[in-house]
């Protein structure tokens, strides 16, 4: 009687499973879990890049909670987050609906709409800094030709943060447009034809049919934008550098961690931001699952 052939390595499900998932698990442990846990450890220390870290318990977190600059930065971050997402969704939807129609040169227009996403965020912030400059910028030069007063887009506290929002929206609007456009393109035609036959108005079709069908994509846009906007940094680097009441949470974390090198304190700020993002992310993710299940 001949012995049964030994299964080859790739035929062993258990081995194969770990072989395939192994690199990813290693990557996650080495570059995500370990740094996060190390940051958590650091947030309980007074480490300032000199000597050994000393345990300080919850002191760094107490400081975060009592720090007016932190709350101000968080408030600004939420303000930016709200307006960026609101504008990107409303404007993105309008433009996606427009681009969903057939018209001559649509390929070129769609290509042009995509360009802002391809520009490096840092170059983009420097570019807008010059374009919007009160004295030498092209926008104010044109306003001058039209007989209008120059606008201090990036040199007055009352406007600077809104200008940061504008720059951010300019860059990220195409993301919303194209995600929503992909959703519109993939919609089932029969339901829309039925609505048309029933005499539903375009507004009713939009609110009763288009919007509900796009809900999962809208939640994905919000989820991703919340995560990205909590880390908004580049538009500040090339423009105000956090001045004129524009310091956002990520800039503050950078300043404390990599200018002051107050690593313990910086870790506490960063983890606080992470907790907030995780809470909001978890809530949105729950909504996404519901929306995908058609609930």
């Amino acid at each position, binding site marked *: 009687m001949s012995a049964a052939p030994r299964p080859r390595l790739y035929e062993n499900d258990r081995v194969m499973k770990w072989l395939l998932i192994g690199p990813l698990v290693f990557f996650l442990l080495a570059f995500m879990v370990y740094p996060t846990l190390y940051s958590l450890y650091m947030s309980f220390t007074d480490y300032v890049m000199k000597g050994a870290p000393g345990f300080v318990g919850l002191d760094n977190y107490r400081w975060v909670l009592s720090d007016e600059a932190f709350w101000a930065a968080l408030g600004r971050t939420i303000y930016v987050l709200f307006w960026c997402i609101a504008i990107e969704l409303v404007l993105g939807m309008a433009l996606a609906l427009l681009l969903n129609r057939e018209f001559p040169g649509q390929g070129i227009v769609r290509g042009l709409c995509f360009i802002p996403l391809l520009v490096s965020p840092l170059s983009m912030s420097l570019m807008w800094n010059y374009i919007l400059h009160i*004295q030498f910028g092209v926008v104010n030069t044109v306003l001058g030709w039209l007989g209008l007063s120059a606008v201090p887009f990036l040199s007055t506290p009352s406007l600077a943060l809104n200008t940061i929002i504008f720059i951010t929206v300019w860059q990220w609007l195409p993301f919303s447009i194209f995600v929503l456009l992909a959703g519109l393109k993939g919609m089932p035609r029969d339901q829309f034809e039925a609505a048309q036959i029933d005499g539903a108005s375009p507004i009713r079709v939009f609110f009763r049919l288009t919007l509900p069908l796009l809900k999962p994509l809208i939640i994905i846009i919000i989820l991703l934008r919340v995560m990205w906007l909590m880390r908004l940094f580049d538009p500040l680097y090339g423009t105000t550098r956090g001045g004129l009441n524009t310091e956002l949470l990520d800039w503050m974390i950078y300043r404390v961690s990599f200018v002051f090198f107050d690593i313990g304190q910086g870790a506490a700020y960063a983890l606080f931001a992470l907790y907030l993002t995780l809470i909001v992310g978890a809530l949105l993710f729950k909504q996404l699952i519901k929306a995908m299940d058609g609930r």
Partner: protein
Amino acid sequence: MLSPRLKRILAISAVAAVAGAGQVAAKDDFTLDDIPEIENKEPIHVALEAGGAADLIIPYLQKFSEATGVPVTSESMVFATIYSKEVVELQGRTGAYDVVVTETSWTNEWRDYLYPLNELAEKYDPEGVAGLQAVVDGIDPGLLRMASTRDGVLVGVPYYTYTMISIYREDLFNDAGEQAAFKEKYGYDLAPAREWQQLLDQAAFFTRKEGEELRGEVLDHDFYGVSMMAGRFPHVQDELAAMIWSKGANWASPVREDGKLVGFEITDKDRETLEWAFTLYQDLMKYAPPGSENAFWDFATAQFVEGNTAIIPLMYNGLWNWASSVADEVPGARAAAAPVVGERPYTGAFHFAPSRDSGNPEAAYWLLKYIGSYATQKEMIEGGWAGTNADVLGEPDKTVETNYAAYGWIPPTLVQWEAQAPDVDDYLHFNSSAFGKIYEQMTIIGHENATGATTPAESVEAWEKAFDRLQGKFGELPVN
């Protein structure tokens, strides 16, 4: 008719020139040919500031490399990045850089990571410490203290300075009509300001609307009295420091026992002067062009060159070259330089310092000596950049008349260095080992005050809190 002020500058310049001429005989005669065979041929890596200064220094690094056979590589970083990058590499003891460029205000923080130069001289220089001293003697002592000396130990050689000077439109100040109008309004002669109130008067006087006249010509745009650098950049702190120091006060004063520095204290005089300086800054902002709230040196100088401002009261001397080109941009315009009010400006410098973790401190030492030497500095200064060798700067041919664009900054710089030298030992900037961090916080406080986000009183309060915390956390000496 020369003003008494101008006469004094010319007199001091003449003295400096004569002294410089005297020193020429005593100057070091060190050149590349005097470097002995460097045994260690390991490449050295140099950290540099990106931009004009870096571009100018790179050819000298190449010359050194060719002459010694030691490969030299360099890494240029924008100013905002250098500090962070060097903290990581120096304090992390990575040895990534053999020679680092440091700003005057950072040296104290990093002294534990930099080689005392005398140690290297004793080890590698056949002439010993005397060989190094001959080079160092050419550099202004005050500048040497600020940039490179900590607790009496020399840890680097400054090679490029950005001492603040005042730059003004000489054509406006010399215009008979403007002079008469100014005298009628303020009751004294129009001349480079010696008091801050005079500067405020001049700022207000020259601020004019489109359609009004300036120098007898109708303006086709708004014109402003002063260029300021109120953005959230280090320069706003530098401007405030010049105001505070001019009054014999400090951001925080040193506390000494038996001549030894034992801590810092914000005295009542400091507190009063700080509030006065914050108020003065806000007052000057009324006469600065729109956009100054987010400006640094490029905007401030550009305003002047474009013919939009009359005075840059506090500007780095390295910018003179550009500022003086107002003569090419505005018909009939001409720039002149004067000491800043109070003659105690922020005096910055980049200096080269050898890292304690360098794999080739021998080559690092010789590179420093070469860059700081009389011959190299002379070449650099005559090439139009703001070198640090006072012997060269004091030479009789370094006058506005011989080379307006290249040398216009020199006379006021020398006057200020001399005036400021006795005070520099008391400046917080060059005594606190936490100053890299404190500098950043001063910038934020200064900017918020300048933009009106905080009142002068609130700014003082914010400074006291911040200093207490930062010095306590990062510094070695206590706040009393």
